[in-house]
C-alpha cells in the first residue's frame, strides 16, 4: 500500500516514514507542501498523511482540492499537526480529513489511527 507523506519539515517526514516502515508499510512517497503533494498524488496512492501548516498550500487546502478530484475523493487522509484547538480540529474535519494526530505523537498513536482507516484504504 502506497502512502503519501506531506510535511514541510524534512525531520517530520523522516520520522513518519520510519514509523510507517516499522509497522510494515515500505511504499512511501513524500512532498514538502500541498502543491507538491497534489502533483505527486495519483491513483496508486492509497493513504495520505499530511501536516497542516506548510508554505504554498496548507494541509487543509490540499485536502479540499484532493476531495474534489475523482481519484482523491475517498482516499483516507490522516492529519498530523501541532494545531490542537477545537476550532482547528473542526476545520480539518470540514476540509475532509478522516482522522487527526496531534504532534508530538507516539508510534502507537500513529499505528492506531492507520489501523482504523485501513479498511477504507483497502476499499
Amino acid at each position, binding site marked *: 500500500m502506497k502512502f503519501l507523506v506531506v*510535511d*514541510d*519539515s524534512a*525531520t*517530520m517526514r*523522516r*520520522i513518519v516514514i*520510519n*514509523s510507517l516502515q*516499522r509497522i510494515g508499510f515500505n511504499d512511501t512517497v513524500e512532498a514538502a507542501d500541498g502543491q507538491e503533494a497534489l502533483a505527486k498524488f495519483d491513483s496508486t496512492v492509497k493513504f495520505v498523511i499530511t501536516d*497542516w*501548516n*506548510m*508554505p504554498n498550500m*496548507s494541509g487543509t487546502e490540499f485536502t479540499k482540492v484532493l476531495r474534489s478530484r475523482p481519484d482523491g475523493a*475517498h482516499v*483516507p487522509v490522516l492529519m498530523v*499537526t*501541532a*494545531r*490542537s*484547538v*477545537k476550532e482547528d*480540529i*473542526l476545520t480539518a*474535519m470540514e476540509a*475532509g*480529513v*478522516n*482522522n*487527526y*494526530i*496531534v*504532534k*508530538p*505523537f*507516539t*508510534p502507537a*498513536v500513529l499505528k492506531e489511527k492507520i489501523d482504523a*482507516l485501513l479498511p*477504507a*484504504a483497502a*476499499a
Partner: protein
Amino acid sequence: MSSPRAHEVLYESEATLRLVDSQLSELRHSAAAEPPRQPGLADLPGILERANTQILDVLSRLRQTRVAMQSSALDKIQTTHDKLKEVTTATEDAAINIMDACDRATQMVDVLDAIDAAPAPDKAKAAEVRGTLRDEIFMMMGALQFQDITTQQLSHASAVLVEMERRLDDVTRLFDTNIEAGIFTGGREYNASDSQTYDPNATTQNAEGRQALADEIFTAVKQPAA
C-alpha cells in the same frame, strides 16, 4: 489593547500633531500677512491659552498612545518570552530523553555481548534484547519531533519581533516625518516567516491531553465518508 486600537490611537495622535503644526503655520502666516502693527501684550494670553490647550490635547493623546503601546507590547513580549522559554525546555527534554535512551541502548549492547560470550548463547534472550534495542532507537527518533514544534515557536517569536520593530518605527516617524522608515534596523528589511507555515500555539506540552481532545471531537462529530 488590540493592535487595531493601538493603530487608531497612533493615527489620532498623528492627526492632532498635524493640527497643531497647521495652526502654528496659520498663526505665522496670518501674522506675516497682517499689516505690521505693534504687537500687543493683550494678544499674548489668548495665544498662550490656545497653545496650552493644543499642547494638553497632544499630551493626552500621547499618554493614550503610550498606554496602548505598553499594553499590547507587554502582552506580546511576555508571550514571546514564554515561547522562547518553552523552546529551551523542549530542547533540553529531548536531549535528556535521547541521552537516557543512548544509556539504555549501550547497556543492551553489553547484555548482547555477554550473551554472545556465553558457552551456550541464549538466542531467545538475545532476540528479546534486540527488539527492545530497536524500540529505544526508534524512541530516539521520535524525540526529534521537538525540532518541528520549536521551529514553529521560533517563527512565531520572530514574527512578533518584526511587528514590534515596525511599531517602534511608526512611533518614531510620528514625531519626525523626515526620518526614513527602518531606523531601528539600519534600513535592513526583516521579514517574518510566512504565518501559514507555523501555528502560534504550537507546543510540545500535554500531547496526550490534546490528542484526547481531538479523539473526543472526532468521536462526537460524524466522520466524513472515507
